[in-house]
């Protein structure tokens, strides 16, 4: 085996015998104390052409093999030295090399990188609701190597969708949304398998629709009748089958809401969130009636939706890899178009939750 400094890792000599390794993909730094200037010389020349014994010879390290072995294995474990030997042989390496080398930031061995990549490749993602958010998520995940999709939406493409829903063209008006998306993601890779479900989500139809099929992640972007209700339906189903799910969010005019990632029985579930939201939103026990606004047309704006999709896409990759912990568990975010800032609100898993509480079960 040869040792290679990863292309995406930069080395900076911080002085005082400290070397900084900067992983440019994820912008993480690892600093190590080095005893000898020789070490900097060795690591900045790890071009993948030398084996262990050749490094020993080249730098006259006879008698210090053990220290060298410790150093190299440390750098490998920290994914500073390449762990891509096993994935490079794969047929799909060339096409997806950017994804693979990104995942490598989290791989402490060749085996782990291969495993994460295979997990993503073979996974099945279900997206419910093909609109301004769901479409981008489908496209992003297909571009990142996911090869099985279940796409659920009953609608056909309408001219009013085109200002914000990616993948729909003027020629697609009148066609089924799921069919258009399926065709689009097959442009990226014709071997992507798509199961189309041309139905609206209802309270109880997920069971019948999914059946025995294996699903690794469900992303809810359905907003009929509204996001809160569909999230409850999807959440309940996923808890039963222990399927990780992401509450797609949606948005409230100037605010994009980034929904939570739920890992069943590990993080706060949809019901846990709802219980805590009820507390936060209650208006001091007064009788409150919302006045109905006539002919309300809620506006919508494409990039405020796609920014949600981008974050869901990143969370999805973490979940599907099975080795990168998702960040949006136990919290949900709000992106504000006025300030262009992102804020999170924290939630807890409730021990008394009807769906996932351990005191109840």
């Amino acid at each position, binding site marked *: 085996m040869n040792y290679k400094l990863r292309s995406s890792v930069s080395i900076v000599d911080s002085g005082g015998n400290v070397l900084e390794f900067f992983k440019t*993909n994820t912008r993480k730094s690892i600093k190590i104390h080095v005893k000898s200037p020789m070490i900097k010389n060795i690591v900045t020349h790890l071009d993948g052409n030398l084996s262990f014994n050749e490094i020993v010879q080249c730098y006259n390290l006879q008698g210090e093999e053990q220290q060298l072995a410790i150093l190299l294995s440390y750098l490998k474990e920290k994914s500073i030295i390449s762990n891509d030997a096993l994935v490079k042989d794969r047929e799909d390496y060339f096409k997806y090399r950017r994804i693979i080398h990104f995942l490598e930031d989290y791989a402490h061995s060749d085996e782990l990188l291969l495993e994460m990549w295979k997990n993503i490749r073979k996974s099945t993602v279900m997206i419910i609701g093909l609109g301004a958010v769901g479409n981008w998520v489908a496209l992003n995940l297909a571009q990142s190597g996911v090869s099985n999709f279940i796409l659920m939406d009953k609608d056909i493409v309408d001219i009013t969708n085109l200002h*914000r829903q990616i993948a729909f063209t003027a020629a697609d008006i009148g066609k089924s949304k799921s069919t258009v998306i399926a065709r689009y993601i097959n442009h990226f890779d014709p071997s992507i398998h798509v199961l189309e479900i041309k139905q609206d989500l209802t309270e109880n139809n997920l069971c019948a629709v999914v059946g025995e099929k294996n699903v690794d992640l469900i992303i809810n972007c359905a907003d009929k009748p509204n996001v809160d209700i569909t999230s409850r339906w999807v959440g309940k189903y996923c808890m039963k089958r222990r399927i990780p799910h992401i509450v797609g969010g949606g948005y409230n005019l100037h605010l994009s809401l980034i929904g939570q990632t739920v890992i069943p029985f590990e993080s706060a579930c949809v019901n846990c969130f709802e219980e805590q939201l009820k507390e936060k939103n209650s208006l001091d026990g007064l009788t409150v009636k919302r006045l109905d606004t006539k002919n309300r047309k809620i*506006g919508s*704006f494409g990039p405020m939706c796609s920014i949600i999709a981008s974050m869901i896409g990143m969370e999805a990759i973490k979940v599907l890899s099975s080795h990168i912990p998702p960040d949006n568990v136990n919290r949900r975010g709000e992106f504000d178009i006025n300030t262009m800032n992102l804020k999170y609100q924290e939630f807890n898993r409730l021990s008394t939750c009807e769906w996932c509480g351990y005191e109840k079960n």
Partner: protein
Amino acid sequence: MDWGKIYKIKDSVDIYLVDETYIVAYFMNTRQKKKFRVSNGSVHIIEIIDGINNIENIYNTYCLKNGTISRKGFSTFFNCLLKSGLIIEKSQKHILSSSELKRFNRQINYFSEFLSSELAAEKAQKKLLNSVVAIWGCGAVGGNLAVQLAMAGVGTFILIDPDVVEESDCSRHVYFKQESVGDKKVESLADYIKSINPAIKTYISYQWLHPNADLSEILKKATFLIDAADEPYLGYTANLISQNCVPIKLPHYIAGGFDAHLASTGELIIPYITPCAGCYSTYFERVLSDWKPEHHPIKNREKEMGGLAAMSLFSSSFACIEIIKYICGLKDMKVAYKPRAEFLFNGMKLFNLTPSKDPNCKICGGADHEL
């Protein structure tokens, strides 16, 4: 008060009736709550404002059901609603064609929440339709931005990129098609955005961005320019772009989403108002003065750099929002512009940078400029 005008409740306002004695208006845009003590009658007036009937009709409907009230009292109440920002004037004439209105209806509605009337929102949409946006570099982020701005209604594009579509672009470019491998990127992209909206006009160029490149034709046509070219590296192209755009006061955006900055936001540059690419260079020289990477042993490093489509989408979406806010005048971007930030995959948070205008900037510093 003009009794022929039509008003509607702002879509961004939720109105609650509390204990039958006062209403709470919740303004989603500003997160403000306003309380008003109300009579039964005024609740009824609010309930019949429908965005279809003019004030005269609303007054008549009200009187028919609740008995006649004075026109003066009615008009005072209406003015109060208007002043508090609960209602907005509906436009009764249009400046857009019916097909434009149909396609962009919901976006115009969105814009109207930032503006004083629906007509102003239509005008904002018109500004997008009249814009000529030049995009330098049609890769992951440049390609996304072209598509997103095309969907939002930008009428004319100048797409500039010398490269051809490669197979590995599949994981990066949203407009990728297997059968386009080997074709010029700008041609594939132009075809794609025209398929979204056949009314879009495109001009294409295969020019490289280098110090002696002649940009005069492009600068003459463009009303806005986006730099998404990261070869040889973004700092280099950004400086070239600002050097060309600042003196002629052409607003531009330096896009994010390149190696080592996979989900950075990029920044809007309004010449002589926001920090330009030169000011950013000064800033980085200062904050990164100790940061000198060693020579890297791998040749052709770019073949092994990481990246995710979702991260490019973050950068392009962020840029798209800032650009549209600027072009459409949704906010006063001279004060509301957002400096560059890095979005971190790890932790999903924005890390804000704090550049400032450099009074000695080689590009935008020196003598006072008339703004």
